[in-house]
């Protein structure tokens, strides 16, 4: 699992560097998925996921978190795809009940994006999240991982707002709390770039 995260992190770093100067054409974009279903003829496009916050993380910390972003298209609908990943390191294996429903994000929950000028763009999720955690024993401790992918639909106004300037901070609102993320300086334009890539690819 960690190797996958590392790969994502490396990929996001490369992608961030590529897009730092803005997206010109579809040829500049990294697309994760662009396929049309043979039976339904429905086309799905997903841009490559970019990590917005941590790059290598700090394995010495007891708690780590990561957030990645991609732009998503299917059957005429566009959305911002936000992936959350949390890892807690604990001494002892938690009981099963503590691993259930550890990340709950109801439908219509908000994603607040603070733009470079301090304005806030608000999106609302379309899919409810009720995620469980997974505990894995390592040589010295137990890793408790929790992840989820949330879709926030995009309309023309949101696309204009998110692509006009960089984003500096994000707040993902969940059932009983919220998660704040500081966008890494190399990822300030990643949200806008992902959307522009999607637009260019379509």
């Amino acid at each position, binding site marked *: 699992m960690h190797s996958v995260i590392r790969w994502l992190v490396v990929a996001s770093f490369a992608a961030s560097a590529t897009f730092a100067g803005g997206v010109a054409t579809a040829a500049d974009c990294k697309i994760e998925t662009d396929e049309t279903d043979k039976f339904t003829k429905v086309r799905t496009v997903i841009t490559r996921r970019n990590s917005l916050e941590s790059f290598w993380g700090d394995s010495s910390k007891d708690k780590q978190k990561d957030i990645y972003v991609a732009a998503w298209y299917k059957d005429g609908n566009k959305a911002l795809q936000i992936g959350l990943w949390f890892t807690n390191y604990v001494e*002892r294996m*938690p*009981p*099963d*009940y*503590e691993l259930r429903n550890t990340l709950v994000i109801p439908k219509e929950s908000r994603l*607040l994006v*603070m733009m470079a000028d301090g304005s*806030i763009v608000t999106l609302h999720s379309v899919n409810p999240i009720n995620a469980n955690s997974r505990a894995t024993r390592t040589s010295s401790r137990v890793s408790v991982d929790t992840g989820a992918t949330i879709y926030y639909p995009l309309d023309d106004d949101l696309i204009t707002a998110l692509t006009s300037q960089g984003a500096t*901070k994000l*707040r993902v609102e969940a059932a*009983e709390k919220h998660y*704040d993320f500081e966008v890494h300086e190399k990822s300030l334009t990643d949200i806008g770039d992902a959307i522009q890539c999607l637009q260019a690819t379509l």
Partner: protein
Amino acid sequence: MKRLIALSIAFTVLAADADAGTASCKYKQNEADDFTGERLVKVDWVDMTGWASSTFNRTIGGRKDIEVAAESAGGHSLLKFRLKVSDAVQNPPREQDLYSALYVPTGSSLEITMADESIIELMVDEAVRGKSRAKYDQGSYVITSKFTVRYSLDAELAERLVNEDVVYLRLAAQSHKYDFVTDKGSIEFNINKKAQQALTKVVGCLNQALSEEVS
């Protein structure tokens, strides 16, 4: 010589009082929320362990740790207690035993008995289930449960906690199988002067931060 000793004691008492005051306030957070602009204050934890004696059943392996802190977000203030309680039993616990080892349901109260024997009551902000673990140690299983419980705190009660002495805490809680709570369904603490100062300090620090402008 006697005068010197008396003077020394007086200075020690003064120093202790100053420490309990707001001069040495430590905050984990004292700023405006980036997104909402709401004022966020989190006073750091102050350890009360050893200062407050509890009424736990003192079986082998039994112990308790208690810390106190306070926070405020958007004008809603909370008094928080972080507790770690343990008990030793002969039989290995089932998962259900750990699940129901410690629970503070919605609607539970914290009763604070003041020095004048009046009781003030704070209500729990949200239900809390303890994180419970079992560890085999020298022929018995030590069950440990950790939890943080938050109680709503209004300005009037905060003022009383700063200015009046507290002698007793009673936190309503449930435990299915372990001696974490009394038969009355509570975790109780006698509060001595030092523990009183810890309470006074965190509430005083919260009040102080809320009275100041934040840039």
